[in-house]
């Protein structure tokens, strides 16, 4: 059976050349990087090489790069580390209502610790307006955290402008760039970014390894207490193979960014155009132009997302949805609700995220497979039946 993967925002496969750099560190190069003999020192060197690669990709200094266990840890650390280190100055944090749960649930935790969080709403395309952030700033605001690009609807935020505003007001600015790396060129200096989270497995690197970039001079608490690894800020024996793999992956991802984007945009724009043409009562979620090159998010009225995913899976297509049934709660995606979608339309969303190995013929297959699935589900939907008979639900 076919196996077509259209879920690159969930994760990606490790590139062979990335895997190759990692493998020796599981076997012959097993030394602890903190050890003084050469087996250890060489691994310390391998980590420093990876650190340099990440720094280069972001236009940061190597000493500003801290390896973590992933994007979620980087997000938790950024928020909690800043909050607890700067609470004497203030206990107010600004973020948006479309962040990843790694941010939103950390904010909920901080609220319980006595911090106050302002969640800035987005417009119906999923864009945050800088004026809204400016209005929310208070004398006790210690942190602004806005995601670079949204993982569900792919919208790209005005990060450079938000960074400039934060800088002007003397407030620390963090961005969750987990979905942006390898898709958008990032320059932390030019974009006024004080902290940035990223995750290896979103750009053909390994899982279980990420980065928090912390601008030199930012006052932050360590996330893990223990040994002196990561300049005393993030204890624990390093995941050497993972770090080396992330270094190689980010190098490859940032080298080929233009070519990669051009390929993805072609697939994305064709998918959006043809799905909307072929399937009535469907709509694009998120901004048409200002979105990640490989992101398609479309709602189909009168049906539910998990059903679409199950039927696509039976045809060998991997995709994702923002329906309640895929979120483990009764509510559909908070992002789709934040852009103003009614619940029943948010339940019927389908997200396709394209990547390296996808081809036009993969898309041909999707375009012939999807319409009959939507039709079959609508044929059994009481909402569609009522709509056809009465012209409304």
């Amino acid at each position, binding site marked *: 059976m076919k196996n077509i993967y259209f879920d690159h925002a969930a994760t990606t496969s490790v590139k062979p050349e990335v895997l190759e750099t990692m493998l020796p560190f599981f076997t012959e190069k097993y030394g602890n990087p903190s050890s003084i003999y050469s087996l250890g020192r060489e691994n310390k060197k391998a980590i420093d090489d990876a650190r340099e690669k990440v720094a280069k990709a972001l236009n940061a200094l190597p000493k500003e790069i801290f390896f973590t266990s992933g994007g979620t840890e980087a997000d938790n650390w950024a928020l909690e580390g800043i909050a607890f280190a700067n609470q004497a100055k203030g206990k107010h944090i600004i973020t948006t209502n479309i962040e990843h749960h790694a941010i939103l649930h950390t904010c909920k935790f901080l609220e319980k610790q006595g911090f106050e969080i302002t969640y800035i709403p987005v417009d119906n395309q999923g864009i945050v307006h800088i004026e809204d952030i400016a209005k929310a700033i208070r004398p006790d605001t210690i942190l602004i955290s806005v995601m670079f690009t949204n993982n569900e609807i792919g919208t790209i935020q005005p990060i450079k402008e938000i960074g400039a505003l934060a800088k002007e007001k003397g407030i620390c600015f963090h961005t969750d760039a987990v979905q942006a790396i390898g898709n958008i060129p990032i320059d932390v200096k030019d974009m006024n970014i004080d902290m940035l989270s990223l995750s290896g497995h979103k750009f053909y690197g390994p899982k279980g390894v990420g980065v928090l970039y912390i601008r030199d001079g930012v006052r932050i608490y360590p996330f893990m207490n223990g040994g002196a690894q990561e300049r005393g800020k993030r204890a624990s024996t390093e995941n050497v193979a993972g770090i080396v793999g992330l270094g190689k992956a980010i190098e490859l991802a940032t080298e080929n960014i233009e070519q990669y984007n051009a390929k993805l945009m072609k697939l994305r724009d064709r998918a959006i155009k043809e799905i909307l043409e072929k399937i009535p009562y469907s709509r694009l979620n998120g901004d048409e132009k200002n979105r990640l090159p490989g992101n398609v998010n479309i709602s189909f009225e009168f049906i*539910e997302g998990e059903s679409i995913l199950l039927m696509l899976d039976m045809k060998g297509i991997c995709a994702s*949805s923002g329906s*309640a*049934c895929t979120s*483990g709660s*009764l509510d559909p995606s908070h992002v789709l609700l934040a852009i103003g979608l009614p619940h029943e339309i948010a*339940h019927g969303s389908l997200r396709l995220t394209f990547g390296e190995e996808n081809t036009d013929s993969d898309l041909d297959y999707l375009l012939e497979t999807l319409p009959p699935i939507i039709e079959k589900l609508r044929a*059994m939907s009481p909402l569609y039946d009522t709509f056809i008979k009465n012209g409304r639900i």
Partner: protein
Amino acid sequence: MTPLLKMEEYSQKVMDHFMNPRNVGVIEDADGIGEVGNPVCGDIMKMYLKIKDNVITEVKFQTFGCGAAVATSSMATELILGKTLEEALEISNKTVAEALNGLPPIKMHCSNLAEQAIKAAIDDYKKKNE
């Protein structure tokens, strides 16, 4: 996006009833119609019954919802076809779930919906025939 409920959590029987649902459709001159759930929660089940001499002689359903919602609707229609109203009313959400070889825990509410749809359709019939 949050993790998808793993497909392996659905039994083969659930997937069979989802991919090939039995008794989908509408009975235009139904004797009883029950509709439960709401679009906000992402689940609506509508059940149509033909009843003769206290026995369910025909049943059809329409469902807006996830794989479990479709499968439980389909199974519920199979379980009540040919049954007396009293027998049909005895069918619980557990009966439906067991007939499908079980449902993942977070999907158990879908089987409640099937039970409620049966009861609502029979109630509707009884009201019409009072």
